[in-house]
């Protein structure tokens, strides 16, 4: 690892890092909720999230130096007590969520002023950091039921965050309500599935479950539990055709929330699915093999094509990008469905890259919408002349989304191609190529409108986004280029993650 944070921290702190990374933001939530000034609330949230980033960096370092960390909450030893586990699989996810959270918080300051009434801003920050704590908790926990609790903490605060968009656009209320219903069904399905597993094995600890499931793997209870869990988490991660809540929730929530959700929420749910499929169940199980080949892979392929196709015809840029997100989730699921170490690594690689490019895209759209007051494609005509910095960053991220060489998106698509060809799944290559062509079309529509049209009277007042907004935007845009040239940092992390999912393949 190119950095050394652990040596800077006291030993007592390092031992508690798995708990601290969640507890730190979580305890800040009640404080932010009662702080009278929203600027102070924002500063507290920023400090808390930077703390989480430091914890996450240190955790990555510790995990790569000393191997898997286990933390028994309340001193109750697992498998009876709740266990936090940090290994090579979830440490990168923690890092991703924490870093994106930091950038989103910086981005929040100028956009909040525009989009959220003053008396709600401190509470909004509180809901945001609670969501953050929930997502980190999902990533860090080693207990199947505890995962549900954290999933609900993050989801419920997400519904609030989406609904705040209703202050500007009333459609956010129906979007949030829709998301609430779908998300609750997803969480319920997940917990029903965990209930089945508990009935069959008598344990909730993931490591313990993994040890006990093979004995009873042929029972209907386990099969039903598996199905419930896959569908439940599928709803959360917007797996086609369970993605209906996503486009509206992304399109009508405040811009800052869209940035944060697009880059973290579905990613963490995807991680939860990977964790359940590979660390609790096993790809060696026959029914899981069949699910991969006959359910996940076809659905992912349909998503990659159908939703890219739908994205082409959207008139609202945020909705267009939201549909593109569902298609990209399809890419990741294809990597997962290959059920090989290479495939999973490629899927996770694309997950991290997608967080970077979608984060940047939504940030840029929000940056222009700040002075434009709309995210309709036709209102974006020629805005690149008014806001060149914002739109250039957007163009970089858009090219990365298409997968142009020298951008991060290219490398992860190549990784997916390779992984598919090794398995002989040539049709995956065809699907990805077709989806990429469609991506050229919808990204082309955005770029054509913003760069090549002449601005009309609607765009008179468009200005460059404020510096607080350009900073996180350009960090992400440059990251897209940097990791497009040298992605060894990310690929090391994702290879490590995949090696946890396939123990024994490599020592």
């Amino acid at each position, binding site marked *: 690892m190119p950095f050394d944070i652990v040596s800077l921290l006291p030993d007592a702190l390092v031992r508690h890092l798995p708990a601290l990374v969640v507890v730190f933001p979580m305890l800040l939530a*009640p404080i932010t909720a*009662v702080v009278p000034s929203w600027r102070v609330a924002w500063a507290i949230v920023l400090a808390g999230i930077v703390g989480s980033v430091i914890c996450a960096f240190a955790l990555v370092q510790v995990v790569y130096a000393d191997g898997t960390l286990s933390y028994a909450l309340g001193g109750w030893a697992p498998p009876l007590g709740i266990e936090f586990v940090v290994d090579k699989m979830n440490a990168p996810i923690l890092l991703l969520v924490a870093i994106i959270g930091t950038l989103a918080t910086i981005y929040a300051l100028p956009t909040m002023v525009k989009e959220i009434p003053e008396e709600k801003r401190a509470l909004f920050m509180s809901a945001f950091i609670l969501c953050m704590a929930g997502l980190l908790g999902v990533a860090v926990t080693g207990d199947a039921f505890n995962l549900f609790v954290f999933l609900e903490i993050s989801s419920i605060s997400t519904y609030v965050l989406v609904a705040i968009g209703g202050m500007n656009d009333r459609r956010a209320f129906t979007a949030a309500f829709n998301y609430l219903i779908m998300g609750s069904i997803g969480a319920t399905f997940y917990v029903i599935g965990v209930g089945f597993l508990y009935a069959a094995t008598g344990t909730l600890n993931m490591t313990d479950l993994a040890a006990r499931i093979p004995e009873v793997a042929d029972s209907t209870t386990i099969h039903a539990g598996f199905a419930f869990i896959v569908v439940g988490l599928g709803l959360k991660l917007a797996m086609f055709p369970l993605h209906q809540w996503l486009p509206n929730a992304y399109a009508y929530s405040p811009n800052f929330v869209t940035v944060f959700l697009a880059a973290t929420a579905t990613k963490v749910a995807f991680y939860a699915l990977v964790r359940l499929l590979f660390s609790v169940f096993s790809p060696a199980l026959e029914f899981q093999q069949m699910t991969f080949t006959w359910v996940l892979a076809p659905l992912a392929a349909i998503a990659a094509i159908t939703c890219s196709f739908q994205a082409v015809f959207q008139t609202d840029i945020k909705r267009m990008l939201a549909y593109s997100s569902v298609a990209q989730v399809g890419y990741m699921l294809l990597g997962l469905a290959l059920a090989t170490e290479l495939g999973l690594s490629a899927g996770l690689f694309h997950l991290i890259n997608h967080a970077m490019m979608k984060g940047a895209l939504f940030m840029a759209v929000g940056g222009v919408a700040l002075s434009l007051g709309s995210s309709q494609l036709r209102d974006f005509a020629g805005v690149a002349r008014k806001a060149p910095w914002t739109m250039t960053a957007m163009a970089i991220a858009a090219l990365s989304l298409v997968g142009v060489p020298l951008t991060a998106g290219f490398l992860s698509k190549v990784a997916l191609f390779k992984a598919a060809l090794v398995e002989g799944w040539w049709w995956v290559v065809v699907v990805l190529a077709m989806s990429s062509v469609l991506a050229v079309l919808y990204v082309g529509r955005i770029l054509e409108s913003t760069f090549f049209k002449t601005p009309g009277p609607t765009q008179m007042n468009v200005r460059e986004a404020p510096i607080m907004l350009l900073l996180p935007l350009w960090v992400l845009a440059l990251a897209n280029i940097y990791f497009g040239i040298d992605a060894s940092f990310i690929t090391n992390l994702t290879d490590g993650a995949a090696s946890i999912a396939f123990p024994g393949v490599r020592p």
Partner: protein
Amino acid sequence: MNPDHHVILRVTGKFLIPIIVLFALYVQFHGELSPGGGFQAGVIIAVGVILYALIFGVVDAMKRIPPIFSRSLAAAGFFIYGSVGVWSLINGGNFLDYDFLVAEGPEGHWGQHIGIIIIEIGVLFAVAGSMLTIFYSFAGRAPEIDDEDW
């Protein structure tokens, strides 16, 4: 509010509400030995206030227990719960390890005793505060369209 209406309700209400809150405290502190605990007690306390709001009006109830107070109460409860965990962390144990709350030998279990009581108080605050906040935000919501405007 017209003082002639609901005399019986208001008189019995005034008599009942203190008993409801007292019962909540019984449920809270007897929770170790019988069914009960912070969650149930919090709900019962909130019910007392909600009954007050139903009889005397939401506006009056909001004057006695302002929404900012109920919200802060919920936040405070959550914070108390979390700080117990942090306190045991500072004392060298794992997060929420009650054995480390007070300095005692390996045979002592006062930490467990104290820990659960403080945590249940946190739960009481959080639940009572959240229940009231939810009630206020539903009941205190002004209708956007008057019935006559339909």
